């Protein structure tokens, strides 16, 4: 029978991995399991949870750096930062509503291992951009550290960022240092109503190309969710001090005046709206295949148009059009045509966020890679995890 390991320290975790390496027995590695239904399932007898390794190691608000153990709940991290009027600038999502697991946001380790970033990623950068340092256990059962606790650091390879989006297949993180930022004094949502996907793309492109410093830009088509029940909504978020927001709002009004149907969502309502966009609330309560599609921003609406010619889809654009969430209504994943369309529209990648275990086992959940790149990825995996015991097959066959 398989074991369920629940270490409470880096040393205990190291002992488990050492044992697994010696036994050549794979471990399914999870934080608290909130994203277990995302990605490929791991075939292993044993499971290792990192959510017993918790706690804040160091937090000096004036340094804008937080050092935290990897199993600490995201919620706890966010609450602590909020108490000091700071935040994780990349605003990671709580995917509970779409992944069907218990509606919780998981651990900070899980957020970074999947490089999970929300709408503000557009301006603030991704989760990986905020990682400064890492302590982890490799598949060799060795504790190592990389990076540091300061923002500017080029001492050695950037393994801390390299860890992000490795899905627990290279090493198991036990602690991170993360760059945090002050929360904006105010936020405000400038909304254009009733635009088509193409018009929305144009509007978002213009806004992003101006000095209005838009921090998030999303488009909800008409009927997509309760918010956009009557009109499609193109959301442009402004954050900062009030006098600055006022000025930038005027700027947006002026450059987008050819779209006259405009409104404002301010304060708490704005935060709530972006929280819903971030957490994909519009896709909750369904089990249909949901894709995360990353393309160049101006290609987003083209990908949607091409898909709509062939399939029934529900969709939403974020990151000024560069991120398209696509839900296939027929229940089939259509991975091959989807990726073909992406490739014909400037390239990018598609990741299957939600699907049955069966479907995730039978198609490429992550974007297939060119042979040379796949070879390199496999060699990298082997250098960290020579016996292929950490989450084997979580991302690709062999990785």
């Amino acid at each position, binding site marked *: 029978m398989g074991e369920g390991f629940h270490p409470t320290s880096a040393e205990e975790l190291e002992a488990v991995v050492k044992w697994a390496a010696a036994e050549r027995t794979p471990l399914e590695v999870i934080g608290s399991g909130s994203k277990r239904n995302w990605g490929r399932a791991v075939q292993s007898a044993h499971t290792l949870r990192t959510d017993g390794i918790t706690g804040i190691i160091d937090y000096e608000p004036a340094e804008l750096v937080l050092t935290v153990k990897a199993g600490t709940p995201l919620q706890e991290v966010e609450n602590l930062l909020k108490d000091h009027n700071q935040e994780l600038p990349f605003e990671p999502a709580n995917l509970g509503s779409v992944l069907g697991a218990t509606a919780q946001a998981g651990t900070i380790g899980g957020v970074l291992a999947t490089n999970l970033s929300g709408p503000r990623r557009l301006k603030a950068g991704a989760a990986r951009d905020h990682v400064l340092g890492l302590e982890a256990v490799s598949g060799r059962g060795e504790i190592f550290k990389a990076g540091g606790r300061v923002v500017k650091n080029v001492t050695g390879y*950037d393994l801390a960022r390299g860890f992000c989006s490795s899905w627990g297949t290279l090493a198991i993180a036990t602690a991170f240092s993360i760059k945090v*930022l002050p929360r904006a004094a105010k936020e405000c949502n400038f909304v254009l109503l009733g635009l088509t996907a193409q018009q929305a793309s144009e509007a978002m492109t213009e806004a992003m190309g101006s000095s209005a410093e838009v921090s998030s830009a999303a488009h909800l088509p008409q009927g997509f969710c309760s918010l956009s029940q009557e009109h499609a909504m193109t959301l442009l978020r402004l954050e900062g001090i009030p006098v600055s927001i006022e000025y930038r709002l005027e700027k947006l009004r002026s450059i987008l005046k050819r779209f006259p149907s405009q409104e404002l969502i301010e304060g708490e309502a704005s935060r709530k709206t972006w929280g819903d966009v971030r957490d994909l609330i519009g896709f909750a309560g369904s089990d249909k295949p949901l894709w995360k599609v990353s393309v160049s921003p101006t290609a987003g609406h083209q990908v949607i148009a091409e898909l709509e010619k062939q399939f029934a889809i529900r969709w939403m654009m974020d990151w000024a059009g560069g991120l398209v969430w696509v839900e296939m209504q027929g229940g089939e994943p259509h991975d091959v045509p989807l990726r073909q369309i992406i490739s014909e529209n400037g390239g990018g990648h598609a990741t299957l966020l939600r699907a049955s275990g069966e479907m995730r086992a039978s198609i490429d959940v992550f974007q297939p890679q060119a042979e040379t790149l796949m070879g390199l990825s496999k060699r990298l995996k082997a250098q*960290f995890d020579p016996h292929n015991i950490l989450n084997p097959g979580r991302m690709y066959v062999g990785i």
Partner: protein
Amino acid sequence: MAAIAMPKPSQETLEKRSKIVADLQKIVPGEGVICDQIEMRPYETDAFTAYRQLPLVVVLPETVDQVSKVLKYCYDNDVKVVPRGAGTSLSGGALPLEDGVLLSMMKFNRILEIDLQNRAVVTQPGVTNLGITTAVQADGFYYAPDPSSQIACSIGGNIAENSGGVHSLKYGLTTNNLLGLEIVLITGEVIRLGGKHLDSEAYDLLALLTGSEGLLAVVTEVTVRILQKPETARAALIGFPTSETAGKCVADIIGAGIIPGGMELMDKLAIDAAEDFVHAGYPLDVEALMIVELDGPEAEVDDLLKRVSAIAEDNGSSYLRVSQSEEERNTFWAGRKAAFPAVGRISPDYLCMDGTIPRAALPQVLQEMQKLSEKHGLRVANVFHAGDGNLHPLILYDANQPGELAAAEEFGADILRLCVKVGGVLTGEHGVGIEKRDLMPEMFSEDDLKQQQRIKCAFDEKQLLNPGKMFPVLHRCAELGFMHVHRGQLPFPDIPRF
């Protein structure tokens, strides 16, 4: 060569030199292969000029296909390769090897695509950092990372070093502004990563390659993000009676939630040298001078400047001047940007260090650095990116005085040890190269360093790309792959289960 030892040259390669040159000439015809001693002279060092070495041969390819063939040839024949951009490395990253091909990427000097709608520029790696901004500034855009060498340094070199600059406090380093790469492995394989879209599709190889100092691959194409230029930028010069109060002011500004576009400090020696050199109008009766720049909409800049001034006053500032014009702002910066050459005028030689520390440790580090200065009998001028804790102490010495270079190097090592001791790092933006290579164990354990070197093994198992840089001890990949294993039954009943 002085103190830092490089890998022992391969006698076999040295003996085959003429054949290697002839073979490379077949791949890169015409003037693309330089083998004459005098013509190779400009390549013998980079901006870390204390070390010099002529390469085996210099190759300047013009196409990706040539790069691929040169690398494959070197791989097949076990010949080392040192990639080089503009040669502005301050840590010896492009120092040639006697038995190595010096691969200059400076013929890759074209911008391939400007895509304003997607806010991206696709460029060859030999284009200068400033060249990218120049190409898009008429449309109101710029490329954010701005190393002081931006007029000369190449974007490919910026990738290798993960370069920063005075504005990286607010706008990030190279790694935060990079969207895609085309790279060539030592085997000659060409790999494309990323593009104009965001985030990597699987492993974040862009992260590993940025700052890899030419040890993993050769970059042949770069896609970067460009930003809309802020509407207003204003700078303030703020003087302090002591370096410690200036250091505390820096921490207080950030602590108040203000992220300036740039926040620099200079100490008395640096202020005097800079003022003497460029006449920027710096006050000469202060011990420390802060240049803080706020950018954004005018109303926001005015508001933040008021708050910064108030914080400075609370910290006992004795001088304040806010730029009233773009010209004046540039003058403020001119002194700072010329600080290194200005210090070069008051001392025959200087060593530029590059540690980063937590901001709160600034006053303590400045005090201890003064003690170290007395201990080593050498002067130190301090110029730093204060906002992100990145110090650039300039150690003044005279290479013609016996023992002074060694004393300066020892002083520098002491400063970096001090940085690590207070929770900082050896290098913030100049890279490890050869300069800080032997100090790596101050910051990393043997296991840490071995895991780093294993990354190289995934890219370059024969360790032919830029060996001798970054790591103090070269381990063979086979040796790094070895694992001690002790099998046994589950020996830890005390580890909790779920």
